[in-house]
């Protein structure tokens, strides 16, 4: 149930909205305002008792309640003094403009131009409310992709065309070549990803734009199969699977950041200000690279043979320096 504050906020937008859209349907208005139809009816009944001060019958806002309840159609009159909505509040202006500036970072060409023009006009309309955002009081950094890559990917999405990608996979240290059918562009955790049906993997894959080394627009339509459904990213980009290997790792103080950076199954404080974490590992090559990078600050406790294998790899790497030592 809405409280009076929320209701008044809605009514101040609802009145000008209904003046702009005479004969609007209750259901449509409810969807637009994100409430249930019966809430809109309740709102109309409140408006019915509102009007000019010292209200006599003729001074009240006129609403055809029968039409609203019966045919589901709204007619509102006699509310000229509420012809325009309330100005944007500071938090609304900042949230909207920050969202638009973030959107700007992932659009290209004419779309980006439209976003830029919208931002300029809304900054003016927001006036003082946006002044709090002078120099951007909120900012979402989106890692820029090479302009020609962003442009081609945007064109493929708009024109529903297939793409050929030269794509780096750092976790396996390889560069791959593949054809993909673009589905959407996603920004998550400050990076832009192309979600596409990968014809090599025959599955939905996310490709980080800054890891696309080259891209070619193919003269073929994008045809993701019916089973290609967008992934639910509400829990973040990295979604460990239960089938992945469960590794136990000791992190000395210089490696404690790992526990914050990657999704873990458990984190335990241990002696010497170190941590013992369990995490799911989809690819042991990734874990090996991480352990080598951390240079002894991380130790794989389980599986033990994986720890041994990484130590062997490090010894092998050292042999290249034998002649220098």
């Amino acid at each position, binding site marked *: 149930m809405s409280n*009076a*504050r929320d*209701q*008044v906020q809605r009514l*101040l*937008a609802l009145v000008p909205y209904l003046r*702009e859209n005479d004969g609007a349907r209750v259901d449509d208005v409810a969807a637009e305002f994100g409430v249930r139809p019966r809430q809109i009816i309740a709102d109309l009944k409140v408006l019915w*008792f*509102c009007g*000019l001060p010292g*209200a006599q019958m003729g001074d009240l806002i006129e609403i055809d309640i029968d039409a609203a309840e019966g045919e589901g159609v709204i007619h509102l009159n006699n509310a000229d*003094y509420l012809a*325009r909505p*309330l*100005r944007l509040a*500071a*938090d*609304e202006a*900042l949230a*909207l403009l*920050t*969202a638009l500036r*973030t*959107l700007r970072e*992932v659009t290209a060409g004419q*779309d980006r131009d439209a976003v830029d023009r919208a931002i300029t*006009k*809304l900054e*003016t309309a927001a*006036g003082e409310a946006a002044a*709090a955002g*002078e*120099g*951007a*009081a*909120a*900012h*979402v*950094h989106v890692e820029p992709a090479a302009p020609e890559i962003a442009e081609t990917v945007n064109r493929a999405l708009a024109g529903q065309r297939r793409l050929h990608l030269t794509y*780096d996979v750092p976790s396996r240290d*390889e560069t791959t070549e593949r054809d993909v059918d*673009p589905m*959407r*562009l*996603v*920004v998550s955790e*400050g990076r832009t990803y192309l979600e596409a049906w990968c014809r090599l993997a025959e599955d939905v894959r996310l490709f980080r734009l800054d890891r696309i*080394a080259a891209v070619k627009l193919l003269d073929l339509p994008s045809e993701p199969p019916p089973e290609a459904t967008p992934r639910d*990213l*509400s829990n973040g980009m990295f979604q460990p699977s239960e089938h992945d290997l469960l590794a136990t790792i000791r992190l000395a103080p210089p490696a404690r950041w790992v526990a914050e950076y990657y999704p873990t199954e458990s984190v335990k404080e241990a002696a010497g200000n170190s941590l013992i974490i369990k995490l799911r590992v989809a690819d042991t090559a990734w874990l090996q690279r991480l352990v*080598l990078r951390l*240079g002894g600050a991380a130790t794989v406790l389980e599986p033990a043979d994986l720890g041994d294998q990484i*130590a062997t*790899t*490090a*010894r*092998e*790497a050292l042999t290249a*320096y034998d002649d*220098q030592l």
Partner: protein
Amino acid sequence: MSARKSERLLNLVICLLVARTYVTKERIREVVEGYAGQTDDAFEKMFERDKDELRDLGIPIEMGTIDKFFSDEVGYRIRRDVFELPEVHLEPDEAAVLGVAARVWQHASLAEATTSAVLKLKAAGIQTDQSALSAIEPHVGASEPAFDPLWSAVVSRTVVRFEHRRSGAAESTMRTLEPWGIVSWHGRWYVVGRDRDRQATRMFRLSRIGGNVKTVGRAGAFTVPEGTDIRSLVSELAPPRPTSEAKVRARAGCCVSLRRRANAIEPYEDGWDLLHVPYADSEVLAEEIASCGPDAVVEGPGDVLDGVLRRLRSVAGVPG
């Protein structure tokens, strides 16, 4: 009950909005439905609370003297030019992007604020288009407990006090900050502002701030120094520009990211290339080279070589 209150609040708005001059409290009590039956005391409380709630919604209720000859007689009004959203004309392609903007925030209160802003624009006759740019989904979340209080503090320019724990440190310290802005970098939020105790510009990661953020004093207590651009302050989070170059042998088909940013790649002996890799911090580069294991061999400079050897020996369990 809540419907009656909504009626009273809206009637109060209309009363103050249509008035040509300031309206006295007595007059308001007379003409706004819902105040009349109250005792003096109850009316005073009710009226004060109503004004606060309306101001909370961003409605500018002004107070002033009604008659210059009787300066003790005060009243209230809402100036239409301050109350109303100014005229804004958007071209169809400009209006269309608003629909996408409304889907950006994956955080309840910000999604609500954006939706509410878009609704006001729609109420002003702007037609958005849900299907525009439908293949673009920029998502911005905020799961840190400190986000909500800090966002509000930035918007209202209120000083905050919080406990902050430095990376790797067990103890936290109390900080008092004038929060100028809030920034997301690779999915992590930071607050930037003037640290009152240290008298300097500071940036704090929200995940290192407890959820217990307290406001200090009133809203609007500080001004952000002119020319401040938090976007440029954030660039401190980006890796510094390379100043040196290392020579690294790389096995063919390996060391993808080193190759990608190499200044030059020369063929070396069988199955190997020699990369000229720019870098700013020898330790950071050493980490990356070590992560390649036997597929990368650094030739120099010496500090990068030392960093790589130290790491590999430590993982191999070989004494240095």
